[in-house]
């Protein structure tokens, strides 16, 4: 207990203040020591990483180039596995073809499939992810069941990594497993899904995508339509035309218009150009622009005076981009607009087109 002989008024409060001071000074000292320890540990980790990377980079480079293939690789110590897996995956991401086959062969010699399978079943997310990714890069068909279980994991990153590994291992079966889950897994980044389907190829994804969209409810079908451009264009337009004829949910109609290629005329176009939902009118303007036909000038002109800025903007851009309209003709269309908004938006689109030129 500190000597509080000086405390004249309230020794209780003073004692508490003294203890608070001592405690905070002690805590400061402990934190300082902990910070130093953190720094020391970080440095140790970095040194270890540098050593491991230096050692294995040469082995991986030899495997990729195919030199030194007669000599067996050194054994992979347990404490070097983590860094090696990262390095191996990083390299594997960058190469395909024969070099990738040689890299996979090196991994098999080092017992990587077993290690990756064990890691893919672990609870720690970081380890699990690297395990799953490695199995995909190894195209390890024995792990298909394990990956299929992981595709339904609650964590989006685990699930999508498993989906990617499945597609990598077996594109056809992988796409079959992946596509019915896409609408359910809105937590999967769309661009990643897109890239996976792209990797599988339009010949493989077209049919399962068509089936999934036809059987899906309006909301799910609208979501799946984002990926339909990966299918060949006749499949894509067939889906869009079917949905536009049979369904009326505005979000789905807009999505179908957006997805249609423009090579095929879509049903109900006149009705959609005047639809109460502005985003359908906007998508209709874009679609007409994609078709690029001279007889649609009147439809686009009407949309120039729409009450919604985006509809006017898309109609104006579509008009300016029509291959059949010369600049002078567009200027004449602008001059004859009685609506000031229509003139302004067409002026902007002309300005933008000018800057491109």
């Amino acid at each position, binding site marked *: 207990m500190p000597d509080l002989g000086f405390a004249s*008024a*309230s020794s209780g*409060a003073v004692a508490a*203040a003294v203890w608070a*001071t001592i405690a*905070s000074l002690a805590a400061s000292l402990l934190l300082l020591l902990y*910070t130093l320890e953190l720094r020391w540990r970080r440095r140790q980790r970095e040194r270890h990483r540098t050593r491991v990377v230096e050692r294995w980079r040469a082995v991986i480079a030899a495997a990729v180039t195919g030199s030194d293939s007669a000599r067996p690789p050194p054994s992979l110590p347990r404490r070097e596995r983590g860094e090696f897996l990262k390095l191996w995956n990083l390299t594997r991401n960058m190469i395909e073809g024969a070099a990738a086959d040689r890299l996979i062969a090196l991994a098999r010699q080092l017992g990587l499939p077993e290690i990756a399978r064990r890691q893919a079943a672990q609870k720690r997310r970081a380890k699990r992810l690297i395990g799953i990714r490695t199995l995909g890069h190894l195209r390890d068909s024995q792990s298909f069941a394990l990956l299929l279980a992981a595709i339904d994991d609650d964590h989006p990153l685990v699930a999508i990594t498993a989906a990617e590994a499945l597609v990598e291992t077996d594109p056809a079966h992988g796409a079959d497993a992946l596509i019915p889950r896409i609408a359910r897994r809105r937590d999967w*980044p769309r661009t*990643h899904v897109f890239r996976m389907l792209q990797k599988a190829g339009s010949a493989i994804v077209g049919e399962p995508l068509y089936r999934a969209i036809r059987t899906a409810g309006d909301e799910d079908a609208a979501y799946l339509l984002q990926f339909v451009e990966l299918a060949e264009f006749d499949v894509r337009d067939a889906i869009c035309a079917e949905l536009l004829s049979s369904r009326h949910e505005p979000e789905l109609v807009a999505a179908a218009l957006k997805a249609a290629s423009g090579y095929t005329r879509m049903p109900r176009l006149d009705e959609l150009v005047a639809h109460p939902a502005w985003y359908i009118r906007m998508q209709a303007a874009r679609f007409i622009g994609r078709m690029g036909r001279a007889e649609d000038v009147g439809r686009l002109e009407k949309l120039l005076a729409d009450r919604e800025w985006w509809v006017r903007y898309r109609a104006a851009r579509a008009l300016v981009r029509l291959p059949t309209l010369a600049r002078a003709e567009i200027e004449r269309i602008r001059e004859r607009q009685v609506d000031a908004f229509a003139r302004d938006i067409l002026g902007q689109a002309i300005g933008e087109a000018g800057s491109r030129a």
Partner: protein
Amino acid sequence: MSTTIVQVVEWVFLAYFVGINLAYLGQNLVAVYSIRRYVHSAAVDDDDPAYSSVHLPISLVVPAYNESTSIVTSIKALLQLEYPDFEVVVVNDGSKDDTLEKMIQAFQLYPYPEAYRNQVPCKPVKATYRSARYRNLRVVDKENGGCKADASNAGINICRYPLVTVVDADGILQRDSLTRAVRPFLDRPETVAAGGAIRIANGCRLRDGFLEEVGLPRNFLALVQVIEYLRAFLFGRMGWEPLGAVMIVSGAFGVFRRTTLIEVGGYDPKAVGEDMELVTRIHRKMRQQRRPYHIGFIPDPVCWTDAPESLKDLASQRTRWHHGLGQALMLNKWLILNPRGGTVSWLAIPFYLVFELLGPVLETIGAVFFVTAALFGAISWPEAGVFLLMSLSLGMLLSISAIMLEEFSFPMYRKPRELAKLYGAALLENFGYRQLTVWWRLKGFFRWILRRRHKWETITRSASVGSG
């Protein structure tokens, strides 16, 4: 009688100091937990193509007023950011210098008829320009609105992408700052705003508007602000994030969903601290409408900013911040202890009211009381000294824990000499600097009470930031 009064006051101030520091330490513990989780997932995500391939288009709005000396370098740096799809919208807020002319020349700007939409209020736009050299650069020339908020609103009106970032013209962004800042929006679709850690650029070496080498400033005021920023961003913000109660997304760099900005009416040109007021308003509107939302924060250093190095500039900045705090809280007083306000109403707002807004008032009263009581013999000088020592040691503990969090998350100051310098600053800031900031905040408090108005503020740039 006087002994009783002294006893009561002593206990009150003891309780206040322990309370405020326990609150900060509580934030610290939450921050340790959330930074640990973040660092762990970032280590995985950085390597993961799921993140590197995803992007949401972003509009960068750069309000500029009399930025002639640095505007061209700043914009060139922004145009080189590593992000697949973004546009830069510079808003010249009626600058009196040649900011606009310099941009016209450097980027080959030409006027074009943008069909401007007035969705959030701002002063009239005089002209819009496009760059013949950079497709993703546009410049808005508008009448002076007298504040950054008005200029930001003009940018919000003209930008086209779903996410909007308002950045300071003199801010230095990390090349990958957009990729990092967009993460909360990808992880949680209900995210409406996200901020990142801001660091001090003084003492760093810059090249072409980018950070080349991290360093600590030689100027003592700037050095202490390095510690303050670590405290504010690493445990100030990270402590509130998991509780869903981040109240500030820094004006230097923050990402917002454009639809949300328009729904809440954009920045308030009358607000002194427009960044805090906007975020507080978003909380209020979302909670009033019972809508699910999230305001995210990432501890990654995304933006480096120039700290004031003179007492005059620093005083002006701190006075303004405190004035802005009072105004933001009062403009959104619906949130105070509102049953529908959740953690914002019951934790964050009371914290900001009692410990932040009223903090300098209570600290000043406490200091005056102890000195007066000691002068009149009601308490002994050593007794007053104990309370002073307690306040200083608790303050130092917070600074040291912020340095620990820095080391724990994204350590930028790697040389042993820099660590020693930071500890030195954590100790020395208690002698003079802290008392000065209390004084400036007190001035800000009274300015808020007297409802004075602030305008665009310029600070003297440090040499490092202006170079290159």
